């Protein structure tokens, strides 16, 4: 049974159900509305590129499934994915898309799409969002298709960093030194205490977007500056943040498991962040962990999964963990009770990552000066592009993000391509990543000349 079938069986008790995948990336933004933030962190930068990550869902859907997109795919990219058997579902694009909106928000403003979705109601078709917020509940109501997950209120609650910090403490899992802060006064005391230990300090918003909504305070002066800014709110004002020691030279891990509607917990996968010369290269899989560490992750998944189910959650869970320089495994830094990057790689991993193969899931950050077609990307990658069989090869698993950030004026913009570099061993996968990055940079540099 493949990943998508397991997902359906565990969430709606029917492995032959039809899912409409709605990949509302950075659903955390919705959960964070009205919640306390770090000073200045309320400034949200253009989300156009993040919103186009919804295209990754194309690689998750099975043939009976539907993937809702913000715009039609580049036809050469769609043909490529079909040709290598990396995509199978039906792709439907909304008719009213704005770059700043998630695909859910677009769908809610697209009458034809709403009618199409209404027409799917057959008792075994479900909306399967990346994460469930108020907008996905509204869409479910509007089209009469049930959500394959719990209520938005539950999802928001269990995704807070305060929730995961308290859960780690109550489960007795190894925790990074730190404390939950509900008020400005708590925050000041916690930062003082961490500074007194001589540690670098990280302050995280409970409901910040993963990897953002946080600030690292390298020294006492920085801590004082933050406390000065935030102190203006008044000592008893709510802040809802977590203060922790910032540990250097760690190995970052991410593991994924599935909590079924009935409370069973199924471990899915673990990935490891790859650093080369201290620069993040992506996530590798499979990973080479000790039996002891792997055992701890499985055990932690079981404990966390059961606790989440007891609190009303079922669905995919991604957990960030790390191994400190002293070899200590911290099995839960953050719970992401929603789809995560690993989820979108699940079907690819099953199809193309047989024994003896290694992969690095990479993000290629580029600075194009004009839009580029997939045909150009495929041409510059040449024989390096994955053909479905031969390795080494890079499988492009998100193309729309390359051109999504294009602005109204001239000048370069930030674009990204996501790719899975598949090779016979970890070193070859890393080498393929480097070659791919070099070629893509050459392509966009040529485009600007």
């Amino acid at each position, binding site marked *: 049974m493949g990943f998508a079938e397991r997902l359906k069986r565990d969430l709606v008790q029917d492995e032959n159900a039809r899912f409409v995948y709605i990949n509302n990336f950075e659903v955390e933004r919705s959960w964070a509305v009205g919640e306390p933030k770090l*000073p200045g962190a309320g*400034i949200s930068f253009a989300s156009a590129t993040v919103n186009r990550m919804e295209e990754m869902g194309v690689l998750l859907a099975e043939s009976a499934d539907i993937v809702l997109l913000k715009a039609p795919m580049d036809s050469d990219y769609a043909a490529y994915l079909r040709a290598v058997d990396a995509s199978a579902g039906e792709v439907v694009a909304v008719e009213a898309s704005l770059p700043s909106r998630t695909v859910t928000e677009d769908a809610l403003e697209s009458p034809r799409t709403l009618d199409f979705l209404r027409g799917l109601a057959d008792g075994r078709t479900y909306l399967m969002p990346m994460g469930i917020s108020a907008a996905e509940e509204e869409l479910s109501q509007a089209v009469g298709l049930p959500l394959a997950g719990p209520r938005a209120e539950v999802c928001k609650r269990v995704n807070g960093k305060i929730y995961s910090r308290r859960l780690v403490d109550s489960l007795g899992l190894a925790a990074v030194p730190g404390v939950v802060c509900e008020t400005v006064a708590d925050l000041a005391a916690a930062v003082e205490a961490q500074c007194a230990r001589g540690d670098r300090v990280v302050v995280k918003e409970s409901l910040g977007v993963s990897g953002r909504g946080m600030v690292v305070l390298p020294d006492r002066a920085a801590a004082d*500056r933050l406390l000065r*800014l935030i102190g203006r709110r008044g000592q008893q004002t709510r802040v809802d943040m977590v203060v922790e020691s910032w540990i250097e030279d760690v190995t970052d891990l991410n593991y994924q498991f599935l909590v079924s509607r009935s409370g069973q917990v199924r471990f899915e996968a673990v990935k490891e962040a790859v650093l080369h010369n201290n620069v993040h290269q992506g996530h590798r899989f499979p990973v080479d962990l000790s039996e002891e560490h792997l055992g701890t992750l499985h055990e932690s998944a079981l404990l966390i999964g059961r606790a989440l189910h007891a609190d009303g959650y079922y669905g995919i869970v991604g957990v960030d963990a790390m191994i400190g320089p002293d070899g200590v495994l911290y099995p839960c830094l953050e719970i992401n009770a929603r789809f995560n990057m690993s989820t979108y790689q699940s079907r690819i991993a099953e199809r193309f990552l047989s024994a003896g193969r290694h992969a690095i899931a990479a993000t290629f950050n580029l600075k194009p000066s004009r839009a580029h077609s997939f045909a150009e990307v495929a041409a510059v990658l040449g024989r390096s592009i994955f053909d479905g069989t031969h390795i080494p090869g890079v499988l492009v698993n998100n193309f729309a993000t390359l051109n999504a*950030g294009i602005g109204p004026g001239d000048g370069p913009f930030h674009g990204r391509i996501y790719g899975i570099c598949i090779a016979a061993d970890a070193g070859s996968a890393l080498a393929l990543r480097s070659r791919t990055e070099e070629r893509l940079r050459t392509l966009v540099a040529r485009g600007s000349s």
Partner: protein
Amino acid sequence: MNREQIVEHIRIALSSVLNREIGQLEENVRLVEDLSLDSTSVIELLMALEDTMGLELDVEDLQPEVFQTVGSLADYLAAEVSGLVS
């Protein structure tokens, strides 16, 4: 404090926050697209600007437009300096 001095403060603060020396800074340079400022760096930039300029900024209601270019940030800081914005 004149415009040139404000842009110089921005240059120093950005060099510190982005952890690399930034040379001559034109007002049309875009903070996100050209310098790769991200939302996490914004907090640090604000903290650094308060320190170097001796200002107390109202950071709670800042709009993203302020951070479009060096020029737009300089406009905001100039208004703060002159007391036009409370």
